């Protein structure tokens, strides 16, 4: 790599993310993909409610800010109106797997030809660290101060496993952004998901295991260790569905 430049699709503005948060890395992977596929002019991104709510300021393509959890429905409306455009949603775990579960599952079941970038950080970041649908058993959060008690709070949702049972899903992969190797792999997955959409294969989702140093109460480096030690065993990386070839 001769030089490390800002991707064209990534706006030259300060982000709202905490230092050491991996949201920024994920933004970069999406922007690189948009650049490489040459699709900025026809891409419309949907920002969620969550830490990435301001994503509409961070990408240079047209952007829409959706109500909490509704990004897949909003993306559906856009895609049905202008089917030749490329649509992506960017959603956290509370947004996608709690309040927006129905919108997610049904967009997937319809085989809606959109790409979902799902940032799983096992917590509600924006609101200050409450238990998320993906918080791990025993995980201490603001609203599970004694650790997530599965007897009362139930089990975390494994989104890729769940969605891969649906016929409308063309591509589902879980990746992580904790190491150079995994980030490279994550980039490949993001690109493959966009390509699946461009080839009109149906619904594509990349679940990205991400860190939240602020609400996990860890340094950025320790947060990545925590991610590796606790999240990756529960959320195995890999391709869960691939109908693209």
């Amino acid at each position, binding site marked *: 790599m001769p030089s490390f430049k800002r991707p064209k699709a990534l706006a030259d503005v300060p982000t709202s993310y905490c230092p050491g948060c991996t949201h920024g890395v994920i933004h970069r992977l999406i922007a690189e993909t948009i650049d490489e596929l040459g699709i*900025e002019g*026809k891409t419309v991104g949907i920002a969620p409610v969550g830490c990435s709510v301001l994503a509409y300021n961070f990408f240079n393509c047209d952007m829409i*800010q959706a109500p909490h959890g*509704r990004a897949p429905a909003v993306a559906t*409306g856009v895609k049905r*109106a202008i089917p030749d455009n490329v649509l992506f949603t960017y959603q956290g775990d509370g947004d996608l797997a709690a309040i927006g579960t129905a919108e997610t599952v*049904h967009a997937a079941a319809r085989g809606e030809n959109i790409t979902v970038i799902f940032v799983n950080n096992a917590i509600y970041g924006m609101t200050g660290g409450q238990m998320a649908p993906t918080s791990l058993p025993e995980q201490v959060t603001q609203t599970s101060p004694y650790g997530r008690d599965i007897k009362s709070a139930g089990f975390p949702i494994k989104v890729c496993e769940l969605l891969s049972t649906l016929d409308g899903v063309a591509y589902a992969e879980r990746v992580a952004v904790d190491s150079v190797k995994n980030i490279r792999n994550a980039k490949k997955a993001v690109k493959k998901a966009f390509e699946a959409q461009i080839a009109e294969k149906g619904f594509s989702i990349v679940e990205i295991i991400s860190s939240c140093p602020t609400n996990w109460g860890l340094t950025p480096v320790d947060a990545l260790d925590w991610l590796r030690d606790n999240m990756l065993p529960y959320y195995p990386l890999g391709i869960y569905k691939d109908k693209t070839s």
Partner: protein
Amino acid sequence: MSERVLMKGNEALAEAAILAGCRHFFGYPITPQTELAAYMSKRLPKVGGVFLQAESEIAAINMVQGAAAAGVRAMTSSSSPGISLKTEGISYMCGSNLPCVIVNIQRGGPGLGGIQPSQADYCQAVKAPGHGDLHILVSAPATVQEMVDLAGKAFDLADKYRMPAMILADGMLGQMMEPVVLPGEPAGPLPKKEWAASGHNNGRPKNIINSLYLDPYMLEESIKKRYERYKIIEENESLHENYLADDAEIVLVSYGATSRVAKAAINMARGKGIRAGLLRPLTLYPFPKKAVAEAAKTAKAFISVEMSMGQMVDDIRLACDCSVPVEFFGRTGGVIPNVDEILGFIEKTDRRYK
């Protein structure tokens, strides 16, 4: 197309939407709007449009939001319990300055209520169709022909003012068959929406559709700008029918299907020598305040006649500055008031204010 055809209210409204250039419909089944969605599912694919049955009313309004953000004319229809679910999306669309048309074929509430005609969503529609400082355009047809005419107008005004427009009808109008004259299709292409998020094609700065302002002063500013638009709307867009109200001492204010029964009662009252008349709002937001104030000059009393517990009464009081007493007669829960009981109330009111 200018010959008269016999159509059900729900179907006529659907056809009028298509003739107004709407090619995108998103909905979720509910009685009594059923025929509207069924008609759309049959017709839209034939004209290159999209009919999509969503997983919920929440999803449906958000699909409308997406399609509207992409710059096309989009609509959804539902009935009372489903409209409650749409309020989140309606609020976002107001905050994002997005046009769309929402049809509420009202039924009795609260809760699951009933499936018979009602006007009990008046306050929801005109006071709080979503959270925040906002309004949506609300029109109230009383005939199948008006279902057609007000649908076309709703799309035009929604685009003009960049805000949602609601057609507030009821199960009676939706199901009833009447002859209608359908309009022609728009002469040329619809005006282009330069603000739409439909891909910048590397040819313009990016567009953002958004309702979030973290700076309270900027949010206040955006709301105030929107309220300037509301003021223009309140001055220019109210519609009403005046039926024998010019010399009326007893002025009924009634809209939608109920106003048809009210009219019949007024005719009978006139036969009995009572100077009764009707002011019929065709728009509920904006409310025809000036017409009410004008009628107050000759009226001894207003009677609000509604299929609700009197949700419109305060608006009449405000419009006439409480200069004339406002009585109320209504049935609710899906019960349609009959001519005799309205006539009886007119007579009683006439005696009281002699």
